[in-house]
Protein backbone atom coordinates (compact mmCIF):
# COMPACT_ATOMS: atom_id res chain seq x y z
CA UNK A 1 0.00 0.00 0.00
CA UNK A 2 0.95 3.59 -0.58
CA UNK A 3 2.88 5.12 2.23
CA UNK A 4 1.51 8.37 3.47
CA UNK A 5 3.99 11.19 3.17
CA UNK A 6 3.28 14.86 3.27
CA UNK A 7 4.11 15.60 6.85
CA UNK A 8 7.20 17.49 5.76
CA UNK A 9 5.28 20.59 4.98
CA UNK A 10 5.86 23.41 7.41
CA UNK A 11 3.67 26.37 7.79
CA UNK A 12 5.83 29.46 7.79
CA UNK A 13 3.43 32.35 7.96
CA UNK A 14 -0.16 32.71 8.94
CA UNK A 15 -2.07 35.75 7.91
CA UNK A 16 -5.59 36.33 8.97
CA UNK A 17 -7.58 39.48 8.87
CA UNK A 18 -9.18 39.43 12.29
CA UNK A 19 -12.54 40.67 11.02
CA UNK A 20 -12.91 37.87 8.48
CA UNK A 21 -11.34 35.09 10.54
CA UNK A 22 -13.85 32.44 11.60
CA UNK A 23 -16.72 34.34 10.04
CA UNK A 24 -19.26 31.89 8.63
CA UNK A 25 -20.82 33.45 5.60
CA UNK A 26 -23.84 31.31 4.64
CA UNK A 27 -25.54 28.03 5.61
CA UNK A 28 -24.01 25.80 2.97
CA UNK A 29 -26.27 22.82 3.68
CA UNK A 30 -29.44 24.66 2.80
CA UNK A 31 -31.07 23.60 -0.49
CA UNK A 32 -31.26 27.33 -1.32
CA UNK A 33 -27.49 27.72 -0.97
CA UNK A 34 -25.86 29.63 -3.82
CA UNK A 35 -22.31 28.51 -4.60
CA UNK A 36 -19.46 30.89 -3.73
CA UNK A 37 -18.24 32.47 -6.98
CA UNK A 38 -14.44 32.39 -6.93
CA UNK A 39 -11.74 33.34 -9.44
CA UNK A 40 -8.38 31.59 -9.39
CA UNK A 41 -5.84 33.18 -11.76
CA UNK A 42 -2.56 31.43 -12.54
CA UNK A 43 -0.06 31.45 -9.70
CA UNK A 44 2.97 33.75 -9.97
CA UNK A 45 6.54 32.57 -10.18
CA UNK A 46 7.85 34.98 -7.56
CA UNK A 47 11.55 34.66 -8.45
CA UNK A 48 11.53 34.28 -12.22
CA UNK A 49 8.27 35.75 -13.46
CA UNK A 50 7.13 34.04 -16.63
CA UNK A 51 9.17 30.88 -16.00
CA UNK A 52 7.55 27.51 -15.20
CA UNK A 53 4.25 28.50 -16.80
CA UNK A 54 3.14 24.89 -16.43
CA UNK A 55 3.41 25.02 -12.64
CA UNK A 56 1.59 28.39 -12.54
CA UNK A 57 -1.30 26.84 -14.45
CA UNK A 58 -1.17 23.59 -12.47
CA UNK A 59 -1.76 25.35 -9.14
CA UNK A 60 -4.72 27.34 -10.49
CA UNK A 61 -6.24 24.27 -12.16
CA UNK A 62 -5.70 21.96 -9.20
CA UNK A 63 -7.21 24.41 -6.71
CA UNK A 64 -10.18 25.00 -9.06
CA UNK A 65 -10.61 21.22 -9.28
CA UNK A 66 -10.58 20.63 -5.51
CA UNK A 67 -12.85 23.60 -4.76
CA UNK A 68 -15.28 22.40 -7.41
CA UNK A 69 -15.34 18.90 -5.89
CA UNK A 70 -16.54 20.33 -2.56
CA UNK A 71 -19.71 21.46 -4.34
CA UNK A 72 -19.62 24.86 -2.63
CA UNK A 73 -17.82 26.91 -5.30
CA UNK A 74 -18.57 28.21 -8.73
CA UNK A 75 -15.27 28.69 -10.54
CA UNK A 76 -15.25 31.84 -12.70
CA UNK A 77 -14.00 31.13 -16.22
CA UNK A 78 -10.55 32.44 -17.05
CA UNK A 79 -11.99 33.94 -20.23
CA UNK A 80 -13.85 36.50 -18.12
CA UNK A 81 -10.75 37.81 -16.34
CA UNK A 82 -10.05 41.55 -16.79
CA UNK A 83 -6.93 41.92 -14.68
CA UNK A 84 -3.60 42.89 -16.23
CA UNK A 85 -1.38 40.02 -15.05
CA UNK A 86 1.86 41.93 -15.43
CA UNK A 87 1.00 44.95 -13.32
CA UNK A 88 -0.91 43.10 -10.58
CA UNK A 89 0.45 41.08 -7.69
CA UNK A 90 -0.69 38.59 -5.08
CA UNK A 91 -1.08 40.84 -2.02
CA UNK A 92 -3.88 43.25 -1.07
CA UNK A 93 -2.10 46.42 -2.23
CA UNK A 94 -1.30 44.95 -5.65
CA UNK A 95 -4.86 43.96 -6.58
CA UNK A 96 -7.63 46.09 -8.11
CA UNK A 97 -10.62 44.32 -6.56
CA UNK A 98 -13.08 45.95 -8.95
CA UNK A 99 -11.48 43.84 -11.73
CA UNK A 100 -12.92 40.82 -9.87
CA UNK A 101 -16.14 42.04 -8.28
CA UNK A 102 -17.24 43.40 -11.66
CA UNK A 103 -17.10 39.91 -13.23
CA UNK A 104 -19.24 38.46 -10.44
CA UNK A 105 -16.42 36.88 -8.50
CA UNK A 106 -17.10 37.53 -4.81
CA UNK A 107 -13.89 35.73 -3.91
CA UNK A 108 -10.41 35.65 -5.36
CA UNK A 109 -7.56 33.24 -4.69
CA UNK A 110 -4.05 34.44 -5.49
CA UNK A 111 -0.89 32.44 -5.14
CA UNK A 112 2.79 32.46 -5.87
CA UNK A 113 5.73 30.09 -5.62
CA UNK A 114 9.48 30.18 -5.27
CA UNK A 115 12.26 27.75 -4.33
CA UNK A 116 14.34 27.45 -1.21
CA UNK A 117 17.08 24.98 -2.09
CA UNK A 118 15.26 21.91 -3.39
CA UNK A 119 12.03 22.83 -1.63
CA UNK A 120 9.04 24.52 -3.11
CA UNK A 121 7.62 27.48 -1.16
CA UNK A 122 4.03 28.35 -2.02
CA UNK A 123 1.89 31.26 -0.80
CA UNK A 124 -1.90 31.14 -1.03
CA UNK A 125 -4.31 33.99 -0.22
CA UNK A 126 -8.08 34.25 -0.50
CA UNK A 127 -9.70 37.68 -0.71
CA UNK A 128 -13.19 39.05 -0.34
CA UNK A 129 -13.45 41.17 -3.49
CA UNK A 130 -16.54 43.08 -2.37
CA UNK A 131 -14.90 44.32 0.82
CA UNK A 132 -11.50 44.35 -0.83
CA UNK A 133 -9.66 42.54 1.89
CA UNK A 134 -7.75 39.41 2.77
CA UNK A 135 -9.75 36.57 4.35
CA UNK A 136 -6.89 34.19 5.04
CA UNK A 137 -3.47 33.31 3.71
CA UNK A 138 -0.89 30.55 4.19
CA UNK A 139 2.62 29.79 3.10
CA UNK A 140 3.73 26.16 2.68
CA UNK A 141 7.22 24.79 2.33
CA UNK A 142 7.84 21.23 1.07
CA UNK A 143 9.13 18.93 -1.64
CA UNK A 144 7.86 19.69 -5.15
CA UNK A 145 5.99 16.35 -5.22
CA UNK A 146 3.98 17.51 -2.21
CA UNK A 147 2.36 20.32 -4.14
CA UNK A 148 -1.03 18.57 -4.30
CA UNK A 149 -0.99 18.26 -0.51
CA UNK A 150 -0.40 22.02 -0.28
CA UNK A 151 -3.43 22.66 -2.48
CA UNK A 152 -5.58 20.32 -0.35
CA UNK A 153 -4.40 21.99 2.85
CA UNK A 154 -5.29 25.43 1.53
CA UNK A 155 -8.66 24.13 0.29
CA UNK A 156 -9.29 23.14 3.92
CA UNK A 157 -8.30 26.67 5.02
CA UNK A 158 -10.74 28.21 2.55
CA UNK A 159 -13.56 25.92 3.71
CA UNK A 160 -12.74 26.68 7.33
CA UNK A 161 -12.80 30.43 6.70
CA UNK A 162 -15.99 30.48 4.62
CA UNK A 163 -18.03 27.66 6.17
CA UNK A 164 -16.63 27.20 9.65
CA UNK A 165 -15.38 23.64 8.96
CA UNK A 166 -12.65 21.97 6.90
CA UNK A 167 -13.16 19.50 4.08
CA UNK A 168 -13.14 15.73 3.74
CA UNK A 169 -10.20 15.36 1.35
CA UNK A 170 -8.52 13.15 3.95
CA UNK A 171 -11.31 10.54 3.74
CA UNK A 172 -11.79 7.48 1.58
CA UNK A 173 -14.76 5.57 0.30
CA UNK A 174 -14.65 1.76 0.44
CA UNK A 175 -16.86 -0.15 -1.99
CA UNK A 176 -17.40 -3.44 -3.78
CA UNK A 177 -15.95 -3.69 -7.28
CA UNK A 178 -17.10 -6.52 -9.46
CA UNK A 179 -15.67 -8.32 -12.47
CA UNK A 180 -17.46 -11.36 -13.84
CA UNK A 181 -18.45 -13.65 -10.99
CA UNK A 182 -15.97 -12.19 -8.52
CA UNK A 183 -16.09 -9.08 -6.40
CA UNK A 184 -13.46 -7.44 -4.20
CA UNK A 185 -13.23 -4.51 -1.78
CA UNK A 186 -11.58 -1.33 -3.08
CA UNK A 187 -11.01 2.13 -1.62
CA UNK A 188 -10.75 5.50 -3.34
CA UNK A 189 -10.02 8.99 -2.04
CA UNK A 190 -12.84 11.55 -1.75
CA UNK A 191 -11.49 13.42 -4.77
CA UNK A 192 -11.53 10.21 -6.84
CA UNK A 193 -7.77 9.71 -6.73
CA UNK A 194 -5.68 6.75 -5.59
CA UNK A 195 -7.92 3.69 -6.09
CA UNK A 196 -6.59 0.73 -4.06
CA UNK A 197 -7.61 -2.93 -4.25
CA UNK A 198 -7.95 -4.14 -0.67
CA UNK A 199 -8.91 -7.81 -1.14
CA UNK A 200 -7.96 -10.37 -3.79
CA UNK A 201 -9.80 -13.58 -2.98
CA UNK A 202 -11.32 -14.34 -6.40
CA UNK A 203 -14.60 -14.93 -4.66
CA UNK A 204 -17.67 -12.91 -3.76
CA UNK A 205 -16.63 -10.29 -1.23
CA UNK A 206 -19.30 -7.83 -0.10
CA UNK A 207 -20.62 -5.09 2.20
CA UNK A 208 -17.56 -3.18 3.50
CA UNK A 209 -17.89 -1.01 6.63
CA UNK A 210 -15.08 1.18 7.97
CA UNK A 211 -14.19 1.05 11.62
CA UNK A 212 -14.69 4.44 13.35
CA UNK A 213 -10.94 5.19 13.46
CA UNK A 214 -10.48 4.19 9.82
CA UNK A 215 -7.89 1.52 10.62
CA UNK A 216 -10.05 -1.48 9.68
CA UNK A 217 -12.78 -2.55 7.31
CA UNK A 218 -15.31 -5.28 8.06
CA UNK A 219 -16.79 -7.27 5.19
CA UNK A 220 -18.37 -10.57 4.18
CA UNK A 221 -16.65 -12.99 1.84
CA UNK A 222 -17.56 -16.36 0.35
CA UNK A 223 -13.87 -17.18 0.01
CA UNK A 224 -14.20 -20.26 2.25
CA UNK A 225 -17.58 -21.25 0.77
CA UNK A 226 -19.94 -19.75 3.35
CA UNK A 227 -20.64 -15.99 3.60
CA UNK A 228 -18.40 -15.40 6.64
CA UNK A 229 -17.52 -12.10 8.27
CA UNK A 230 -13.97 -10.73 8.38
CA UNK A 231 -12.04 -7.65 9.49
CA UNK A 232 -9.12 -6.43 7.41
CA UNK A 233 -6.45 -3.86 8.16
CA UNK A 234 -6.19 -2.16 4.76
CA UNK A 235 -2.66 -0.90 5.48
CA UNK A 236 -1.15 -4.30 6.31
CA UNK A 237 -3.63 -6.55 4.49
CA UNK A 238 -3.97 -8.66 7.66
CA UNK A 239 -7.39 -10.27 8.03
CA UNK A 240 -9.27 -11.94 10.85
CA UNK A 241 -12.41 -14.07 10.58
CA UNK A 242 -14.80 -12.88 13.27
CA UNK A 243 -17.97 -14.82 12.51
CA UNK A 244 -18.55 -18.01 10.53
CA UNK A 245 -21.86 -19.49 11.51
CA UNK A 246 -23.68 -21.52 8.89
CA UNK A 247 -25.71 -19.08 6.80
CA UNK A 248 -25.26 -15.33 6.61
CA UNK A 249 -22.61 -13.45 8.61
CA UNK A 250 -23.11 -9.83 7.53
CA UNK A 251 -21.31 -7.01 9.32
CA UNK A 252 -22.94 -3.58 9.67
CA UNK A 253 -22.04 -0.58 11.81
CA UNK A 254 -19.34 -0.42 14.46
CA UNK A 255 -19.68 1.17 17.89
CA UNK A 256 -17.86 4.51 18.12
CA UNK A 257 -15.14 2.98 20.33
CA UNK A 258 -14.54 0.25 17.71
CA UNK A 259 -15.10 -2.51 20.28
CA UNK A 260 -18.44 -3.79 19.03
CA UNK A 261 -19.84 -4.66 15.62
CA UNK A 262 -23.49 -4.99 14.80
CA UNK A 263 -24.05 -7.91 12.49
CA UNK A 264 -26.72 -10.07 10.98
CA UNK A 265 -26.60 -13.83 11.48
CA UNK A 266 -29.00 -16.44 10.13
CA UNK A 267 -27.65 -19.27 12.28
CA UNK A 268 -31.17 -20.30 13.27
CA UNK A 269 -32.52 -20.09 9.73
CA UNK A 270 -33.82 -16.65 10.62
CA UNK A 271 -31.96 -13.39 9.95
CA UNK A 272 -31.51 -11.54 13.21
CA UNK A 273 -29.42 -8.67 14.55
CA UNK A 274 -26.59 -9.41 16.95
CA UNK A 275 -23.81 -7.47 18.65
CA UNK A 276 -20.36 -9.01 18.43
CA UNK A 277 -18.11 -7.93 21.33
CA UNK A 278 -14.69 -7.94 19.72
CA UNK A 279 -12.76 -8.16 23.02
CA UNK A 280 -14.56 -11.16 24.49
CA UNK A 281 -15.71 -12.64 21.19
CA UNK A 282 -19.24 -12.94 22.61
CA UNK A 283 -22.40 -12.54 20.56
CA UNK A 284 -25.49 -10.83 21.95
CA UNK A 285 -28.78 -11.36 20.13
CA UNK A 286 -30.97 -8.26 19.79
CA UNK A 287 -33.93 -9.29 17.63
CA UNK A 288 -35.96 -12.48 17.79
CA UNK A 289 -38.87 -11.86 15.42
CA UNK A 290 -39.56 -14.52 12.81
CA UNK A 291 -39.23 -11.79 10.15
CA UNK A 292 -36.12 -10.76 8.22
CA UNK A 293 -34.18 -8.25 10.36
CA UNK A 294 -31.10 -6.81 8.61
CA UNK A 295 -28.94 -3.70 8.02
CA UNK A 296 -28.60 -2.45 11.61
CA UNK A 297 -27.17 1.07 11.92
CA UNK A 298 -26.05 2.37 15.29
CA UNK A 299 -26.80 6.02 16.07
CA UNK A 300 -23.69 8.19 16.66
CA UNK A 301 -24.47 8.37 20.40
CA UNK A 302 -24.75 4.56 20.49
CA UNK A 303 -28.22 4.62 22.03
CA UNK A 304 -30.41 3.65 19.09
CA UNK A 305 -30.32 1.21 16.22
CA UNK A 306 -32.13 1.76 12.93
CA UNK A 307 -32.68 -1.47 10.99
CA UNK A 308 -34.70 -3.03 8.19
CA UNK A 309 -37.43 -5.55 8.86
CA UNK A 310 -40.22 -7.10 6.84
CA UNK A 311 -42.19 -7.79 10.05
CA UNK A 312 -45.04 -5.63 8.78
CA UNK A 313 -45.09 -7.30 5.35
CA UNK A 314 -42.65 -5.35 3.19
CA UNK A 315 -39.15 -4.11 4.06
CA UNK A 316 -39.42 -0.97 6.23
CA UNK A 317 -37.10 0.90 8.55
CA UNK A 318 -37.53 0.51 12.29
CA UNK A 319 -35.72 2.05 15.24
CA UNK A 320 -35.03 0.29 18.54
CA UNK A 321 -32.84 1.00 21.54
CA UNK A 322 -29.37 -0.52 21.78
CA UNK A 323 -30.68 -3.49 23.76
CA UNK A 324 -33.21 -4.42 21.08
CA UNK A 325 -36.19 -3.00 22.99
CA UNK A 326 -38.74 -0.25 22.26
CA UNK A 327 -39.08 -1.06 18.57
CA UNK A 328 -40.98 1.51 16.49
CA UNK A 329 -41.54 1.81 12.77
CA UNK A 330 -39.91 4.84 11.15
CA UNK A 331 -40.95 4.73 7.47
CA UNK A 332 -44.52 4.53 6.20
CA UNK A 333 -44.20 5.99 2.69
CA UNK A 334 -43.61 3.45 -0.07
CA UNK A 335 -43.54 -0.34 -0.12
CA UNK A 336 -39.79 -0.91 0.14
CA UNK A 337 -37.42 1.08 2.33
CA UNK A 338 -33.99 -0.14 3.39
CA UNK A 339 -30.26 0.62 4.03
CA UNK A 340 -30.62 3.12 6.90
CA UNK A 341 -27.60 5.26 7.77
CA UNK A 342 -27.45 7.93 10.54
CA UNK A 343 -26.14 11.38 9.79
CA UNK A 344 -23.03 12.09 11.90
CA UNK A 345 -24.95 14.59 14.06
CA UNK A 346 -27.59 11.91 14.75
CA UNK A 347 -30.53 14.01 13.60
CA UNK A 348 -31.37 12.33 10.29
CA UNK A 349 -31.42 8.89 8.73
CA UNK A 350 -30.67 8.44 5.04
CA UNK A 351 -32.06 5.35 3.33
CA UNK A 352 -33.12 3.99 -0.02
CA UNK A 353 -36.74 3.68 -0.90
CA UNK A 354 -38.69 2.69 -3.98
CA UNK A 355 -40.25 5.56 -5.85
CA UNK A 356 -42.07 5.02 -9.15
CA UNK A 357 -40.43 1.65 -9.64
CA UNK A 358 -36.90 2.87 -8.92
CA UNK A 359 -34.91 3.16 -5.75
CA UNK A 360 -33.87 6.65 -4.67
CA UNK A 361 -32.14 8.09 -1.63
CA UNK A 362 -34.30 9.78 1.00
CA UNK A 363 -33.56 11.29 4.37
CA UNK A 364 -35.89 11.53 7.31
CA UNK A 365 -35.64 12.93 10.82
CA UNK A 366 -35.08 10.39 13.52
CA UNK A 367 -38.60 11.04 14.85
CA UNK A 368 -40.13 10.37 11.41
CA UNK A 369 -40.60 14.00 10.37
CA UNK A 370 -39.38 16.10 7.45
CA UNK A 371 -38.97 13.41 4.79
CA UNK A 372 -36.84 14.60 1.84
CA UNK A 373 -36.08 12.85 -1.45
CA UNK A 374 -32.42 13.53 -2.24
CA UNK A 375 -31.88 11.76 -5.56
CA UNK A 376 -33.90 11.64 -8.76
CA UNK A 377 -31.58 9.39 -10.75
CA UNK A 378 -32.84 7.69 -13.90
CA UNK A 379 -30.56 4.77 -12.99
CA UNK A 380 -31.84 4.67 -9.41
CA UNK A 381 -29.77 5.08 -6.25
CA UNK A 382 -28.96 2.59 -3.48
CA UNK A 383 -26.94 2.11 -0.28
CA UNK A 384 -26.33 5.63 1.09
CA UNK A 385 -23.42 6.41 3.42
CA UNK A 386 -22.69 9.86 4.97
CA UNK A 387 -19.36 11.65 4.94
CA UNK A 388 -17.97 12.16 8.48
CA UNK A 389 -18.91 15.86 8.38
CA UNK A 390 -22.46 15.12 7.20
CA UNK A 391 -22.08 17.41 4.20
CA UNK A 392 -22.09 14.65 1.58
CA UNK A 393 -23.60 11.26 0.86
CA UNK A 394 -22.21 8.48 -1.28
CA UNK A 395 -24.42 5.85 -2.92
CA UNK A 396 -24.45 3.58 -5.96
CA UNK A 397 -26.38 4.35 -9.13
CA UNK A 398 -26.66 2.70 -12.52
CA UNK A 399 -24.99 4.48 -15.40
CA UNK A 400 -25.48 2.77 -18.79
CA UNK A 401 -26.66 -0.34 -17.00
CA UNK A 402 -23.63 -0.61 -14.70
CA UNK A 403 -23.53 0.47 -11.09
CA UNK A 404 -21.16 3.30 -10.16
CA UNK A 405 -20.27 5.00 -6.90
CA UNK A 406 -21.61 8.57 -6.75
CA UNK A 407 -21.30 11.46 -4.30
CA UNK A 408 -23.79 14.28 -3.71
CA UNK A 409 -23.92 17.17 -1.30
CA UNK A 410 -26.40 16.47 1.49
CA UNK A 411 -28.81 19.02 0.00
CA UNK A 412 -29.10 16.73 -3.03
CA UNK A 413 -27.03 18.91 -5.38
CA UNK A 414 -23.65 18.57 -7.09
CA UNK A 415 -23.72 14.91 -8.16
CA UNK A 416 -20.30 13.49 -8.92
CA UNK A 417 -19.68 10.00 -10.38
CA UNK A 418 -16.50 8.44 -9.05
CA UNK A 419 -13.99 7.44 -11.72
CA UNK A 420 -13.96 3.82 -12.85
CA UNK A 421 -11.10 1.40 -12.25
CA UNK A 422 -9.66 -0.49 -15.17
CA UNK A 423 -10.81 -4.11 -15.27
CA UNK A 424 -13.68 -3.54 -12.83
CA UNK A 425 -17.17 -3.69 -14.33
CA UNK A 426 -19.44 -2.35 -11.61
CA UNK A 427 -19.26 -0.73 -8.19
CA UNK A 428 -21.61 -0.79 -5.21
CA UNK A 429 -22.17 -0.73 -1.43
CA UNK A 430 -20.01 2.36 -0.69
CA UNK A 431 -18.94 3.10 2.89
CA UNK A 432 -17.41 6.45 3.86
CA UNK A 433 -14.40 6.48 6.21
CA UNK A 434 -13.69 8.88 9.05
CA UNK A 435 -10.89 11.45 8.70
CA UNK A 436 -7.71 9.48 7.99
CA UNK A 437 -5.04 12.20 8.24
CA UNK A 438 -3.96 11.50 4.69
CA UNK A 439 -2.07 14.80 4.38
Amino acid at each position, binding site marked *: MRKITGFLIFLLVFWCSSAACGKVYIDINSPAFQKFPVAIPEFKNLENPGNEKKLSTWFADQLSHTLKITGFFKIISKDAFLEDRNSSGITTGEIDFSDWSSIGSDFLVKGGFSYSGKNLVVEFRIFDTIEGKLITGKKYWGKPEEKKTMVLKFTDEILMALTGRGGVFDTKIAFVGRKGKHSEIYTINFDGSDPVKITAYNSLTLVPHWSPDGSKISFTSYKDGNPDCYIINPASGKIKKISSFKG*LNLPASWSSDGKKILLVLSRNGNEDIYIKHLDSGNFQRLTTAHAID*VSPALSPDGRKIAFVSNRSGS*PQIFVMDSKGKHIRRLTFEGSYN*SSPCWSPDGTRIAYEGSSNGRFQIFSIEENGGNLIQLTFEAGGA*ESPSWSPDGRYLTFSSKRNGRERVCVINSNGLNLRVMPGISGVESFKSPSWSSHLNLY
Partner: protein
Amino acid sequence: MRKSLITLILVFVCSLALIFITGCAKEQSVKGDVGLTQAQAQPSAEEVAQAEKEAALREQALKEQTLEKKMLAEAAAIQDIHFAFDNYDLKPEARALLGELADWLLEHKGFEATIEGNCDNRGTAVYNLALGERRAEAAKTYLANLGVSNTRITTISYGEEMPADPRNCEDAWAKNRRDHFIVFPNK
Protein backbone atom coordinates in the same frame (compact mmCIF):
# COMPACT_ATOMS: atom_id res chain seq x y z
CA MET B 1 -31.68 -57.31 -20.30
CA ARG B 2 -30.58 -53.71 -20.13
CA LYS B 3 -27.53 -54.66 -18.02
CA SER B 4 -26.31 -57.18 -20.58
CA LEU B 5 -26.74 -54.59 -23.31
CA ILE B 6 -24.59 -52.11 -21.38
CA THR B 7 -21.97 -54.84 -20.82
CA LEU B 8 -22.00 -55.62 -24.52
CA ILE B 9 -21.48 -51.97 -25.39
CA LEU B 10 -18.72 -51.68 -22.80
CA VAL B 11 -16.92 -54.76 -24.17
CA PHE B 12 -17.20 -53.31 -27.66
CA VAL B 13 -15.83 -49.94 -26.52
CA CYS B 14 -13.00 -51.66 -24.65
CA SER B 15 -11.99 -53.79 -27.64
CA LEU B 16 -12.02 -50.70 -29.85
CA ALA B 17 -9.75 -49.01 -27.32
CA LEU B 18 -7.46 -52.05 -27.32
CA ILE B 19 -7.18 -52.03 -31.11
CA PHE B 20 -6.36 -48.36 -30.96
CA ILE B 21 -3.69 -48.84 -28.29
CA THR B 22 -2.02 -51.77 -30.11
CA GLY B 23 -2.16 -49.74 -33.28
CA CYS B 24 -0.15 -47.05 -31.61
CA ALA B 25 2.28 -49.57 -30.12
CA LYS B 26 2.91 -51.09 -33.55
CA GLU B 27 3.82 -47.78 -35.02
CA GLN B 28 6.25 -47.32 -32.17
CA SER B 29 7.93 -50.71 -32.65
CA VAL B 30 8.53 -49.95 -36.34
CA LYS B 31 10.76 -47.14 -35.26
CA GLY B 32 12.03 -49.19 -32.32
CA ASP B 33 15.42 -50.73 -31.70
CA VAL B 34 16.67 -54.09 -30.42
CA GLY B 35 15.81 -53.36 -26.78
CA LEU B 36 12.12 -53.21 -27.60
CA THR B 37 11.95 -56.70 -29.10
CA GLN B 38 13.69 -58.11 -26.06
CA ALA B 39 10.95 -56.80 -23.77
CA GLN B 40 8.23 -58.74 -25.63
CA ALA B 41 8.49 -61.93 -23.61
CA GLN B 42 5.54 -64.35 -23.10
CA PRO B 43 3.46 -63.47 -20.00
CA SER B 44 3.07 -66.18 -17.34
CA ALA B 45 -0.34 -67.72 -16.55
CA GLU B 46 -0.29 -65.85 -13.24
CA GLU B 47 0.22 -62.54 -14.97
CA VAL B 48 -2.64 -63.28 -17.37
CA ALA B 49 -4.98 -64.05 -14.46
CA GLN B 50 -3.91 -60.86 -12.69
CA ALA B 51 -4.50 -58.78 -15.82
CA GLU B 52 -7.94 -60.31 -16.32
CA LYS B 53 -8.84 -59.54 -12.71
CA GLU B 54 -7.74 -55.94 -13.12
CA ALA B 55 -9.66 -55.59 -16.35
CA ALA B 56 -12.83 -56.85 -14.62
CA LEU B 57 -12.35 -54.36 -11.81
CA ARG B 58 -11.82 -51.52 -14.26
CA GLU B 59 -14.93 -52.55 -16.12
CA GLN B 60 -16.92 -52.56 -12.90
CA ALA B 61 -15.61 -49.10 -11.97
CA LEU B 62 -16.39 -47.81 -15.43
CA LYS B 63 -19.91 -49.17 -15.18
CA GLU B 64 -20.48 -47.50 -11.83
CA GLN B 65 -19.07 -44.27 -13.11
CA THR B 66 -21.39 -44.31 -16.10
CA LEU B 67 -24.34 -44.95 -13.85
CA GLU B 68 -23.34 -42.12 -11.53
CA LYS B 69 -22.91 -39.77 -14.47
CA LYS B 70 -26.33 -40.73 -15.72
CA MET B 71 -27.84 -39.92 -12.34
CA LEU B 72 -25.95 -36.67 -12.12
CA ALA B 73 -27.21 -35.77 -15.56
CA GLU B 74 -30.73 -36.45 -14.39
CA ALA B 75 -30.13 -34.45 -11.25
CA ALA B 76 -28.58 -31.56 -13.17
CA ALA B 77 -31.76 -31.35 -15.20
CA ILE B 78 -33.66 -30.30 -12.07
CA GLN B 79 -35.07 -26.96 -13.02
CA ASP B 80 -34.75 -23.74 -11.09
CA ILE B 81 -37.85 -22.62 -9.23
CA HIS B 82 -38.92 -19.00 -9.47
CA PHE B 83 -40.35 -16.40 -7.11
CA ALA B 84 -42.31 -13.14 -7.18
CA PHE B 85 -40.52 -9.86 -6.35
CA ASP B 86 -39.63 -9.45 -2.67
CA ASN B 87 -41.31 -12.76 -1.93
CA TYR B 88 -40.28 -16.24 -0.84
CA ASP B 89 -43.58 -18.09 -1.08
CA LEU B 90 -43.45 -21.23 -3.23
CA LYS B 91 -45.65 -20.93 -6.31
CA PRO B 92 -47.72 -23.99 -7.38
CA GLU B 93 -45.31 -24.77 -10.24
CA ALA B 94 -42.38 -24.54 -7.82
CA ARG B 95 -44.11 -26.98 -5.49
CA ALA B 96 -44.62 -29.39 -8.40
CA LEU B 97 -40.92 -29.26 -9.30
CA LEU B 98 -39.92 -29.71 -5.66
CA GLY B 99 -42.23 -32.75 -5.50
CA GLU B 100 -40.29 -34.34 -8.37
CA LEU B 101 -36.99 -33.50 -6.72
CA ALA B 102 -38.19 -35.02 -3.44
CA ASP B 103 -39.18 -38.25 -5.23
CA TRP B 104 -35.79 -38.43 -6.90
CA LEU B 105 -33.89 -37.81 -3.67
CA LEU B 106 -35.99 -40.38 -1.82
CA GLU B 107 -35.17 -42.90 -4.54
CA HIS B 108 -31.46 -42.07 -4.64
CA LYS B 109 -30.35 -42.17 -1.01
CA GLY B 110 -26.71 -41.73 -1.96
CA PHE B 111 -27.21 -38.14 -3.05
CA GLU B 112 -27.36 -34.77 -1.33
CA ALA B 113 -28.49 -31.38 -2.57
CA THR B 114 -27.46 -27.76 -2.16
CA ILE B 115 -30.11 -25.13 -2.72
CA GLU B 116 -28.81 -21.74 -3.86
CA GLY B 117 -31.23 -18.85 -3.19
CA ASN B 118 -31.03 -15.87 -5.55
CA CYS B 119 -32.70 -12.49 -6.15
CA ASP B 120 -32.98 -9.92 -8.89
CA ASN B 121 -30.73 -6.89 -8.48
CA ARG B 122 -33.38 -4.44 -7.33
CA GLY B 123 -33.28 -3.40 -3.71
CA THR B 124 -30.43 -3.60 -1.25
CA ALA B 125 -27.63 -6.12 -1.61
CA VAL B 126 -27.92 -6.98 2.10
CA TYR B 127 -31.70 -7.37 2.14
CA ASN B 128 -31.40 -9.54 -0.96
CA LEU B 129 -28.93 -11.84 0.80
CA ALA B 130 -31.59 -12.40 3.45
CA LEU B 131 -34.29 -12.82 0.82
CA GLY B 132 -32.16 -15.38 -1.07
CA GLU B 133 -31.67 -17.28 2.16
CA ARG B 134 -35.43 -17.33 2.77
CA ARG B 135 -36.02 -18.65 -0.76
CA ALA B 136 -33.53 -21.48 -0.28
CA GLU B 137 -34.92 -22.28 3.18
CA ALA B 138 -38.48 -22.34 1.82
CA ALA B 139 -37.50 -25.07 -0.65
CA LYS B 140 -35.56 -26.97 2.00
CA THR B 141 -38.55 -26.94 4.36
CA TYR B 142 -40.84 -28.10 1.58
CA LEU B 143 -38.51 -31.02 0.75
CA ALA B 144 -38.29 -31.89 4.45
CA ASN B 145 -42.08 -31.97 4.66
CA LEU B 146 -42.04 -34.48 1.82
CA GLY B 147 -39.70 -36.71 3.82
CA VAL B 148 -36.23 -35.68 2.58
CA SER B 149 -33.98 -35.57 5.61
CA ASN B 150 -32.73 -32.11 6.61
CA THR B 151 -29.20 -33.48 6.81
CA ARG B 152 -29.16 -34.14 3.07
CA ILE B 153 -29.99 -30.55 2.11
CA THR B 154 -27.79 -27.50 2.59
CA THR B 155 -28.72 -23.96 1.66
CA ILE B 156 -26.69 -20.93 0.64
CA SER B 157 -27.82 -17.47 -0.40
CA TYR B 158 -26.09 -15.51 -3.13
CA GLY B 159 -28.54 -12.61 -2.89
CA GLU B 160 -28.37 -10.56 -6.08
CA GLU B 161 -24.74 -11.55 -6.74
CA MET B 162 -25.18 -14.51 -9.14
CA PRO B 163 -27.75 -13.50 -11.74
CA ALA B 164 -28.71 -16.12 -14.33
CA ASP B 165 -29.32 -13.24 -16.73
CA PRO B 166 -27.38 -10.00 -16.09
CA ARG B 167 -29.74 -7.71 -18.04
CA ASN B 168 -31.93 -5.11 -16.34
CA CYS B 169 -35.44 -5.91 -17.52
CA GLU B 170 -38.49 -7.73 -16.20
CA ASP B 171 -37.58 -10.88 -18.20
CA ALA B 172 -34.14 -11.11 -16.66
CA TRP B 173 -35.35 -10.19 -13.16
CA ALA B 174 -37.97 -12.97 -13.30
CA LYS B 175 -35.25 -15.49 -14.28
CA ASN B 176 -32.96 -14.30 -11.51
CA ARG B 177 -35.46 -14.62 -8.64
CA ARG B 178 -34.78 -18.32 -8.27
CA ASP B 179 -33.62 -21.31 -6.29
CA HIS B 180 -30.95 -23.27 -8.12
CA PHE B 181 -30.34 -26.91 -7.17
CA ILE B 182 -27.07 -28.80 -7.18
CA VAL B 183 -27.24 -32.54 -6.54
CA PHE B 184 -24.14 -34.55 -5.78
CA PRO B 185 -23.25 -37.99 -4.38
CA ASN B 186 -22.57 -37.95 -0.65
CA LYS B 187 -19.08 -38.82 0.46
